[in-house]
């Protein structure tokens, strides 16, 4: 009975049973061929990930360089980033497809994540606002770019909450992390993708919140084997900032 339960390892070449070791004692065939082949793919995976990051970075630099930000330019860059994410994600479709599934969906877990994201976003918003007004004596709002437009609020939600939530998750916790997992272990893939996620935002101060945020999203993505919890958290996190600005909650509280 015990022998039936233990999976038998057979030689990939001559089907001889292999009790121990990595080589067949009858034909000498190495049994870790597949692992060795995977190692050959690693460099190619890194190059693909590098190209992806380079394109994302160029788009971020474009956004950074454009002095007078308008809704049209912001949306054009958003669409360009979304297009890049989609192109790379679908190019490796068979590799990435499992991430679009939602195994072990839990409404309780989703609601808990969403509530925590909203609270974290509110806390962070007020801390950043306090530092800006207290020490830098300036007040910055994202809504300034959008408020002149008739549908400014909807466009801001699209540009700041929906696009980043879907396409940054597809890019960093989806495509990039999947590529990195071919090369390094889970923890390292989380740290590298999080670091690149923080760097691509071109703001040193965001180290204190973007990096931990990305690490948490990375852990959730690895643990739950889906990007959808991350999309929901990211969406609520950014949406909370939008809503605070729409309803001028800062002013109301102060």
């Amino acid at each position, binding site marked *: 009975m015990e022998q039936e339960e233990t999976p038998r390892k057979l030689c990939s070449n001559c089907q001889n049973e292999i009790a121990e070791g990595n*080589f067949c*004692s*009858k*034909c000498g065939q*190495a049994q870790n061929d597949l692992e060795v082949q995977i190692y050959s793919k690693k*460099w190619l995976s890194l190059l693909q990930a590098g190209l992806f990051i380079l394109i994302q*970075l160029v788009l971020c630099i474009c956004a950074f360089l454009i002095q007078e930000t308008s809704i049209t330019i912001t949306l054009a860059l958003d669409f360009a980033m979304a297009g890049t994410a989609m192109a790379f994600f679908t190019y490796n479709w068979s590799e990435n497809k499992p991430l679009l599934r939602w195994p072990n969906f839990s409404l309780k877990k989703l609601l808990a994540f969403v509530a925590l994201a909203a609270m974290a976003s509110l806390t962070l918003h007020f801390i950043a606002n306090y530092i800006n007004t207290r020490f830098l004596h300036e007040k910055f709002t994202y809504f300034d770019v959008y408020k002149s437009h008739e549908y400014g609020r909807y466009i801001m939600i699209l540009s700041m909450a929906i696009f980043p939530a879907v396409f940054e998750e597809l890019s960093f916790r989806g495509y990039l992390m999947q590529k990195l997992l071919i090369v390094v272990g889970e923890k*390292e893939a989380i740290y590298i993708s999080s670091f690149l996620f923080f*760097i691509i935002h071109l703001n040193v101060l965001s180290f204190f919140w973007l990096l931990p945020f990305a690490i948490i999203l990375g852990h959730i993505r690895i643990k739950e084997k889906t990007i959808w919890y991350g999309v929901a958290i990211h969406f609520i996190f950014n949406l909370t900032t939008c809503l605070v600005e729409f309803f001028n909650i800062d002013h109301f509280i102060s």
Partner: protein
Amino acid sequence: MENIANNDCSCCYTKYEINDLFCKTCGFPFQGTEQDQKNFLSERNVKEIDLESLNEKVATACKSLYWLSGLTAFSAIVIYFSSAGEDQLATLMTNIFLILSFLGLGIWSKHKPTAAMITGLSLYLIVILLNAVISPMTIVSGLIVKIIVIGALIKGIKAVLEVDKLKKELNID
């Protein structure tokens, strides 16, 4: 003959059974001709020598992360004392962040060389690119150092991947 009598593999010294044609641990051909056995041993030796030289490349690449930290510290001091204005504090903060990042990656590279070098190379390339966007002439300054550091890191990443592959081939953990 002595090894066969002791049932120890001539290559990896693992015990084997008398019916085995090949070693389960390293693939050594027990029943092969003398020439087969010599060829096997020489191929394995070549791979082991390759492994040593690749490990040296990895060590050099890991050291380059410390060098980057030092060079950034040096340039930060020069920039801090030679410039003045509103951006001085922001530049100093960015440089301190970079110094600590490269230093941290250097320390991390002792345990996780692949991840540390990938992150280090990405960070360094992004810094070069951003500096070039702000001031295009910065791409030329220290060009040789940049080429050496980037080259060392790329070689290091390739080497560490090759080391992993060779270790799998040689069945070394």
